[in-house]
């Protein structure tokens, strides 16, 4: 339980998707103009992460890995890890499509507010990145590393933490950018340039948390 909790807190603050790995940067910069849309995208990313990371974990450990139960039973123990990239991206694209249909069917109001963000999530590096980090962390030893992912429960903690970390980062930036609209920035630096520098300063603030030992 303790490992579960520390993994969760760690992925929000220490291994923040944006500030320490730059994942999902494109949509982070493009959709952070107002707090409301930023919130919508943040929630959508968290939601998709919560589904894809556990599914990719099961695929990795059961199907691709040569010692996986499904692999042993059906394929007779073949190492298929080289297929990971193709399978992960196919799972992500498929699940995004599925989530879109489910949300449209059961909650049209949420669907309307997320709008075009849902399909765009398929090519958000944060989703693919979380799956690839999960793949690396399976190999770590849970007894010594708080980052390690040992069971399916850990993947939920990791996905939820990463998603909330991303949400925090994008809402924070959107709030700053809303205020910044009234400031006088040098012309060539306006827009993108100053946004990068703002994110850099936010990342510096988050660096204070990197000493957190959980």
């Amino acid at each position: 339980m303790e490992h579960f909790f520390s993994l969760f807190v760690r992925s929000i603050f220490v291994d923040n998707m944006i500030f320490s790995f730059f994942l999902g940067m494109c949509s982070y910069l493009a959709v952070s103009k107002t707090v409301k849309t930023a919130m919508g995208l943040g929630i959508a990313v968290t939601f998709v992460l919560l589904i894809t990371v556990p599914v990719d974990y099961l695929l990795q450990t059961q199907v691709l890995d040569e010692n996986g139960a499904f692999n042993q039973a059906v394929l007779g123990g073949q190492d298929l890890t080289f297929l990971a990239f193709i399978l992960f991206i196919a799972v992500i694209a498929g699940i995004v499509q599925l989530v879109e249909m489910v949300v449209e069917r059961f909650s049209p109001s949420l669907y309307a507010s997320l709008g075009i963000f849902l399909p765009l999530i398929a090519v958000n590096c944060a989703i693919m990145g979380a799956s690839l980090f999960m793949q690396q962390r399976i190999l770590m030893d849970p007894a010594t590393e708080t980052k390690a992912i040992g069971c399916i429960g850990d993947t939920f903690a990791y996905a939820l933490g990463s998603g909330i970390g991303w949400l925090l980062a994008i809402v924070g930036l959107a709030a700053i950018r809303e205020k910044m609209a009234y400031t006088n920035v040098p012309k060539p630096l306006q827009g993108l340039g100053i946004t990068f520098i703002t994110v850099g300063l936010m990342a510096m603030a988050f660096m204070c948390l990197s000493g957190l030992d959980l």
Partner: protein
Amino acid sequence: MGKLFSKENQEVFSNPLNLNNPVVVQVLGICSALAVTSQLKPAIVMGLSVTVITAFSNLIISLLRKTIPNRIRIIVQLVVVAALVTIVSMILKAYVYDVSVMLSVYVGLIITNCILMGRLEAFAMQNGPWESFLDGIGNGIGYAIILVVVGFVRELLGAGSILGFKVLPQAVYDAGYMNNGMMTMPAMALILLGCVIWAHRAYNDEKK
């Protein structure tokens, strides 16, 4: 031959290098541009890999563009890119293992690099194979240039070396100079890229 290197094709190739640079103008592919540039060597390898992948994915999608049904084009594009990335990742593991360890997950993340999807959607789906190939190489090199600039500054100021060779003489350190450890941190990558964008815009505005 004359047609292959006509004026339009030269523009297709040279536009992304400066005026329409994928990183500093279109703001695509930022994730990896920031993450792999703490040293120069991984930045160069990453730039090269992306150039090869954009060029060939553009070529393949352009050849297939008339046969791909419109509704499933994104998945087809993703699968082509993922297959190319898998090949490049295996080549990197086989020949430059230390760099591939440094790049870690960012090689796999080339799949979701927006430059690729952006070029496939905006260019390769409408243009012939040769133009698309040139466009892919141009965009890849435009991306690589920014990576190399940021990687150069970060490694020089952060570790006092270039490509792993010490370039600052010991006398400089003896006089009290210290490496700026902050440069190797993620935060400085963002601020440096902000400054690159600033310089690029100021320069191009002046020229107009």
